[in-house]
């Protein structure tokens, strides 16, 4: 009895410690956003200081946050929806109608993630130039969709595999076609899994910085490009950069907070329980 309480206490303390370590950089960034540039680089760092909004004022004066934020929302939601639209049928066929090559196909899809993106920058840039997709939201949506597709297919595949074939078969006995089978049986059954996959894809797209910096200039630039414009090799910039980063992660942080139950459930237990 006594030892189990100590054990629980130890685990709780450990969990808190890990959480604090993980959260500390974000906490520090939020704090730094409210400092003056001088305080931001002061050594030793000051924990207690008079908060100021000057960093935020300057960031707002220099760039149109709302425009960047809208681009981020459109691109991450758009690419996620498109990825799900393609991945659900793909994962369905792989989970329920596997061929001897399914495993190889899955691994091959994943292997595309192993190439550093800069390796294909030139060909992609040329393709985009010729198709007129540079600095366009649709171009970015397509790239993000392609970037996340392997992960989305893999996750959906594992969730779908948990669904007993019998359920789908019962549906088929009642006269459901493939489309109805997917829409009315498979999707509702695996909704938590699909939701957590979608959320992950949204987060990955939101944070992606390589393609967004290289394929956009001004009209389609998302928040990652917005942050990038505040780091500098010259002069003091930490407070401004922290303020800009805080503004950029706020929406996704809040979304993550609100949906953490679904995320954890989807990612840890599998879809069907």
């Amino acid at each position, binding site marked *: 009895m006594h030892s189990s309480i100590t054990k629980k206490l130890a685990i709780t303390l450990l969990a808190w410690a890990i959480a604090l370590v993980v959260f500390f950089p974000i906490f520090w960034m939020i704090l730094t956003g409210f400092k003056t*540039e*001088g305080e931001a*680089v*002061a*050594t030793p760092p000051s924990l207690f200081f008079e908060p100021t909004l000057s960093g935020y004022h300057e960031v707002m*004066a*220099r760039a149109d946050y709302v425009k960047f934020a809208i681009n981020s929302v459109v691109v991450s939601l758009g690419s996620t929806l498109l990825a799900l639209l393609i991945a659900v049928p793909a994962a369905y066929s792989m989970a329920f109608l596997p061929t001897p090559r399914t495993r190889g196909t899955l691994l091959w899809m994943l292997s595309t993630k192993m190439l550093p993106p800069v390796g294909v*920058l*030139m060909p992609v*840039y*040329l393709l985009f*130039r010729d198709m007129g997709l*540079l*600095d366009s939201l649709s171009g970015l949506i397509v790239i993000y969709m392609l970037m996340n597709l392997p992960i989305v297919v893999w996750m959906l595949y594992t969730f779908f595999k948990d669904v007993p074939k019998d359920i789908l078969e019962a549906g088929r006995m009642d006269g459901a076609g493939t489309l109805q089978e997917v829409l009315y049986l498979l999707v509702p059954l695996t909704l938590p899994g699909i939701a957590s996959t979608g959320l992950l894809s949204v987060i990955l797209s939101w944070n992606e910085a390589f393609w967004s*910096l*290289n394929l956009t*200039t*001004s*009209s389609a*630039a998302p928040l990652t*490009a917005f942050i*990038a*414009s*505040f*780091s*500098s*090799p*010259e*002069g*003091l*910039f930490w407070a401004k950069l922290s303020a800009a980063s805080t503004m950029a992660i706020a929406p996704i942080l809040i979304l993550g907070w609100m949906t953490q139950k679904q995320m954890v459930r989807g990612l840890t237990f599998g879809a069907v329980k």
Partner: protein
Amino acid sequence: MRPISLIPAAGVALLTSLAAHAETITVATVNNNDMIIMQGLTDEFEKAHPDIKLDWVVLEENVLRQRLTTDIATNGGQFDVMTIGTYEVPIWARQGWLTALDDLPKDYDEGDLLKPIRDGLSQKGKLYALPFYGESSMMYYRKDLFDKAGIQMTEQPTWKEVRGWADKLNDPDNGVYGICLRGKPGWGENMAFLSTLVNTYGGRWFDEKWHPEIDSPAWKEAVSFYVDMMKKDGPPGATSNGFNENQALFSSGKCGIWVDATSAAGRIFDPSESKVADELGFAPAPIAKTPKGSHWLWSWALAIPESSQSKDAAKTFITWATSKGYVDLVGEKKGWTSVPPGTRKSTYDNPKYQQAAPFADFVLKAIESADPTDPSIKPVPYTGVQYADIPEFQAIGTQVGQMIAAALAGQQTVDQALSAAQRSADRTMRQAGYYKD
């Protein structure tokens, strides 16, 4: 409808048609202080030129360089104005990527541009970019610490003297280090400084046939001097200190001596950004065996890519942003220490600037005496004081910088670092086809 109500309607229609005709140009620039001021003056430009609208892409130097190179090499046409340095301009001009700027308006007064800067942005006598600001390197020191230690600054300090002073000033127990120098690896970071040190010790990057000379005695002497002095009198963890970190160290009173870009002068002379503004002393960059190449030359300039669809509007903008009128505008709106330095003779003749910036003379002298075409005691096949104007240099410079940083961190000896650097530079040059033997 009463006729009078037509007037506002017509006005709206006229405005809409004006807006529709306004040409939008995309300006890519570095987010250094002077460029942020330029971006802040967008309204002034658009007021004077209602038919042109500006769109900004502001990025950190290295990110911007990669972004612009991708676009210009693929003829992407995403930008109408590019902010590039004296390193890129000749290389890109040779590739035919930049628009020659040969028919500039009379009142632009091309002859007013400082000659070394102008030469750095020209290729075969044609200007390919207009200088936005220019810089050289010089020595900053703390007058109070020098007085306390009884040191007399000389008119042209030598590196030997500097080392003696750094030894005297070094007082880590009280948080003061004798000397702060760049240690962060990168061709534009530690190698910019180290190239000038090697030059003044009589070394060069390449011989006349493009063979690298990194394991030569001059390089060994210069780099050993640097590593020894930094280990003894430099701040701890110097390998992570670039320009910015050193500026923060110096302006918070932690360095006795700092040798770096002249463009820092305005900021460390500004009491709101610097604790040592009152005690600040200036001197020319130290020399060792020869004054040749002892201080660098760099300029950020505005260029128009050949792929731009709005070349005329872009030209209107770059001539505005690098004009005398722009310098006056910044002086009046932001204060005279904030004007872009190092481009025009007229800026240095301006009594308001001379009064606000007591360092102006040092900067002008440093820029005017820097000669990128003759940076070493021996002849060189390249142009550039702290770089060589070939595309391979970025990779070579950064690799050499990493190896010297490893020597500074004590992970290898200077000899090991330089011979490894020599091998890698030799391989790159051979593969690029500069020589076969």
